[in-house]
């Protein structure tokens, strides 16, 4: 459709068919960059950087819930693969601990969070630019993105210089950013972006609407009629509070707005020519290392935020002492974060457990009351090792842990319709696969294995598997109803889930090192029904 007044040649007609949208300016994909990484001291092979699919143990250990909670609200960063890839090297763990420690420093953490916000806005601007048709709008969003990016990088570089991080990871980034900011290319980008933003912010224009036309002009000193009217009516009471500038949901403009904007560009031809040139010249302004750092830093920030949810409730995390050679385990005040999180919703606290494996001790055999915290303990054991291997703080007051190569789990599968023999066979196949994967550095969690067969069978099979695990030297937990398993030699530690002696219906969720003793459990149930000897004597009249 023709524009009657014929816009000038210099400006594309807002009413002409839209020009093909310029290539969407999306942020550089978070590919491993040439620059330093804040996650690894040495860039590991891409295969070891974690895959999108979670390790098999995640479901059994409720680690899927944990990682979902950690990464909540950060989907854009694609953080999950980081949490799927345990480290195999004690130094790599130390590398991450250093960064976590640095982030305990308020100014550094604030600087990183601010940087993340800046880049998030940058991405929003670029995404919006991709959705808009009007070139003047696209250019402006691109400019604002570049402007915000420059400011963010400059501020982060300054913060890193001022706060002198101690971690190798942040020191490498600090050095990289210092060089980037000092480069003439960055300087030119920043200066030009700042100039254009300032001039665009400062300009104003006048629109005159009549029934069938709108014309645009420079503002002279036309009186503010809004203010004049407000002054007159102020006598009756304060004017309505300025509605908080309703942020337009979309920046999209209709054809009239576009027509006006096209004419505004004619009022300021040089400025808008410069804006166009900026778009051409700095089409790809985002540094890939900066982009990668933005993503990787989220690993730490996300985990920190997750920890804070517990710390506010008095449940602390600690930096575990990690060894790749010494299998001693010393954990004090450990809790299952997945369970704790659901308890905290109801203002309840989880019970914290102390756990230790010393000398030749390798495997806990856990027996005792149902719902007494046995499975929770098994999960906790696996979680501690996995989180420690991620280089993260662990949910405990203090912890010394072995750096495991993998956590393998064997949990009872959901009931299915298969015949018992089929089920047992299936279970044995799974156990065999587990044993094939396990190494001397693995952590193995067995939960109610072979419960589908007779006790004699279960005892026999369990003993066989346990012997294999002991031979491998794995660390592990075996939750079972078979008391006899708990007495299998020095490498076995027997734990018993307790009930409250005063109120046998209440589980304590505490586990005690003691020989397995099925009767303790039976007595508790009897007392709950007032059928102990003493109770019966009293009820019957002594």
């Amino acid at each position: 459709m023709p524009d009657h007044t014929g816009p000038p040649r210099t400006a594309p007609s807002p009413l002409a068919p839209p020009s093909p949208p310029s290539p969407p300016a999306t942020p550089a994909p978070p590919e491993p960059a040439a620059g330093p990484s804040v996650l690894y001291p040495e860039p590991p092979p891409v295969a070891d950087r974690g895959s999108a699919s979670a390790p098999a143990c995640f479901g059994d250990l409720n680690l899927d819930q944990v990682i979902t909670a950690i990464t909540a609200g950060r989907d854009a960063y694609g953080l999950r693969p980081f949490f799927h890839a345990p480290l195999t090297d004690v130094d790599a763990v130390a590398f991450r601990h250093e960064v976590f420690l640095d982030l305990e420093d308020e100014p550094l953490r604030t600087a990183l969070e601010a940087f993340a916000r800046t880049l998030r806005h940058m991405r929003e601007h670029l995404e919006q630019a991709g959705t808009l048709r009007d070139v003047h709008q696209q250019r402006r969003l691109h400019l604002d993105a570049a402007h915000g990016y420059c400011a963010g990088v400059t501020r982060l570089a300054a913060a890193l210089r001022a706060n002198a991080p101690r971690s190798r990871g942040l020191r490498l980034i600090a050095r990289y950013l210092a060089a980037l900011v000092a480069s003439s290319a960055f300087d030119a980008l920043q200066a030009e972006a700042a100039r254009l933003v300032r001039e665009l912010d400062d300009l104003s224009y006048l629109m005159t609407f009549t029934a069938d036309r709108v014309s645009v002009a420079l503002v002279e000193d036309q009186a503010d009629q809004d203010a004049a009217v407000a002054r007159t009516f102020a006598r009756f009471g304060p004017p309505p509070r300025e509605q908080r500038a309703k942020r337009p949901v979309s920046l999209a403009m209709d054809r009239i707005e576009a027509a006006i904007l096209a004419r505004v560009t004619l009022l300021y031809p040089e400025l808008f020519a410069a804006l166009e040139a900026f778009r051409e010249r700095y089409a790809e302004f985002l540094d890939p290392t900066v982009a990668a750092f933005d993503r990787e830093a989220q690993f730490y920030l996300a985990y920190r935020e997750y920890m804070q949810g517990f710390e506010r409730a008095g449940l602390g995390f600690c930096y575990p002492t990690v060894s790749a050679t010494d299998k001693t385990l010393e954990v004090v005040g450990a809790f299952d974060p997945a369970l704790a999180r659901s308890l905290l919703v109801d203002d309840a606290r989880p019970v914290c457990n102390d756990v230790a494996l010393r000398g030749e001790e390798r495997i806990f055999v856990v027996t005792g009351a149902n719902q007494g915290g046995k499975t929770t303990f098994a999960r906790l054991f696996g979680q501690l090792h996995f989180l420690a291997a991620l280089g993260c703080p662990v949910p405990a007051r203090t912890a010394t842990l072995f750096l495991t190569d993998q956590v393998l789990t064997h949990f009872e599968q959901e009931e299915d319709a298969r015949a018992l023999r089929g089920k047992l066979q299936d279970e044995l196949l799974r156990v065999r696969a587990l044993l094939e994967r396990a190494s001397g550095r693995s952590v193995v969690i067995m939960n109610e294995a072979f419960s589908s067969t007779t006790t004699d069978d279960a005892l026999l099979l369990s003993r066989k598997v346990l012997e294999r695990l002991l031979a491998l030297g794995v660390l592990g937990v075996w939750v079972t109803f078979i008391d006899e398993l708990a007495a299998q030699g020095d490498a076995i530690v027997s734990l018993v889930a307790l009930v409250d002696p005063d109120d046998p219906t209440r589980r304590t969720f505490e586990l005690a090192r003691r020989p397995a003793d099925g009767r303790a459990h039976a007595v508790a149930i009897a007392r709950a029904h007032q059928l102990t000897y003493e109770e019966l004597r009293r009820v019957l009249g002594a």
Partner: protein
Amino acid sequence: MHPERDFVLDGPLPAGAEATFRDLELRTLVAAMAAGDGFVAEVARRALLDPLKDPAAIEHRQAVLRDGLANPEVVRALYDLAGATIERPKRSSWGSLRDNPGYGVRHSREVLRIFVEAFRELRRLAEREAERFESAGFNTFFDLVQRELTDAYLAEIEAHLHELAFRDGVVVSARLGPGNKAIDRVLRAPRARAGSAWTRLGRRLQQRFARVDAELTFELPPREEKLARALADERDRGLERVAAVLAGAIEHILAFFQALRAETAFYLGCLHLAGRLDALGAPRCMPEPRPSHEGLRAGAGLYDPCLALNAGRPAVGNDLAADDVALVIITGANQGGKTTFVRSVGLAQLLLQAGLFVAARSYRASVAPTIFTHFRREEDATMRRGKLDEELARMRAIVAHLRPGSLLLLNESFAATNEREGSEIARQIVRALTEVGVRVFFVTHLDDFARSHYQSSGDQGSGDGVRFLRAQRERDGTRTFELIEAPPERTSHGEDLYRAIFAADAAAPEA
């Protein structure tokens, strides 16, 4: 209505207001005040149920009321003017005011023209009548009207309304925000301010030049409905602020007229009630409000105005002398005027604390921080076992709001159980309340309760701040409705009845 603040028509009523309304049969009183006007009824109801607590505030209202009683036609004129002004713009839809600024401005101009007209009339009325009024309330109001609503000011408003017709088009300045979308739109005067002759000339040339500068103008192609709408929308966005300012001003002015209407409605209601009582020949008097701590409550010829209004003739009055009396126990024959009496006490208190005249020949009372009624609920017979429960729960709710000096009217309370238990409950409650300074009027058949108080209060029944009143029946059975100061009589009808019915039954269990 208040020396300091506006009378508020919405918002919660004090606790127990509904019960008080029912127990004291305020409906009759309110109907007499309303004289068929629903709005007056609502205002009257609210004024009666939301008592003033400060004698000065009561006197302020009494003074205004005296002015009103002397100039009824002015009260009526103010009420009518306020009502008509509020009702007139209502025909347009208020709802869409905010949605469309262009429509909003047009609509607001119409409404404001109505308001300006009403302001002129109000000022003329003030100029004409102000001298005949003496009360601070009316004087403040008339002064305000004459001071604020001058011709010059009203002309200023009209000038704005004229400009907001936009005969030269809508002129809006703006800046570029995120994505180069327009922000900070400001409505501008259509022409630049007059400067020197030279700059004026220069601008005119510029303007003319700009007009022909086709490049800077976008003209709607014909028959482009959608585009025309978009153009109007963009223009209207420039009107958002002024539309909001006008809507805000309308809200304020409307609130002014609503307040005027509510306040005059109250006094109009008072005029109606005075007219009804005067026509019956029933006495009324302007009571004397006293501070709460003085503990005074006395009057002559106190009657229940609702009874008089319903009966269409003056009601029997009682004198009340309850200064420094913490507890008045009213006993005696059924239908002998006990409930009527306790109602007349409650109504007098509410009328006094609403700033109204009182149904009595003379009355003087301390204001009560709160006023509560606890009457037996006849209609709660559905759940017999829950009845005492219900009563006690209601009592518990009331207790939370009682303060020293509060007035509590009990009518057959705690009778939902046997007499001994009821008496014990009553004793404990009443004792606790009177000790903290709550003033209690208690109509009761609980002999045990009444007599135990009488025995412990000395021979005359007047010690300890306790008074005993008794409804009586003449020997021939006729009722006088007058209460006399007299000790509670032992009534043994119940026991007799029991004997009469169970005499033959030797195995009858003791109740």
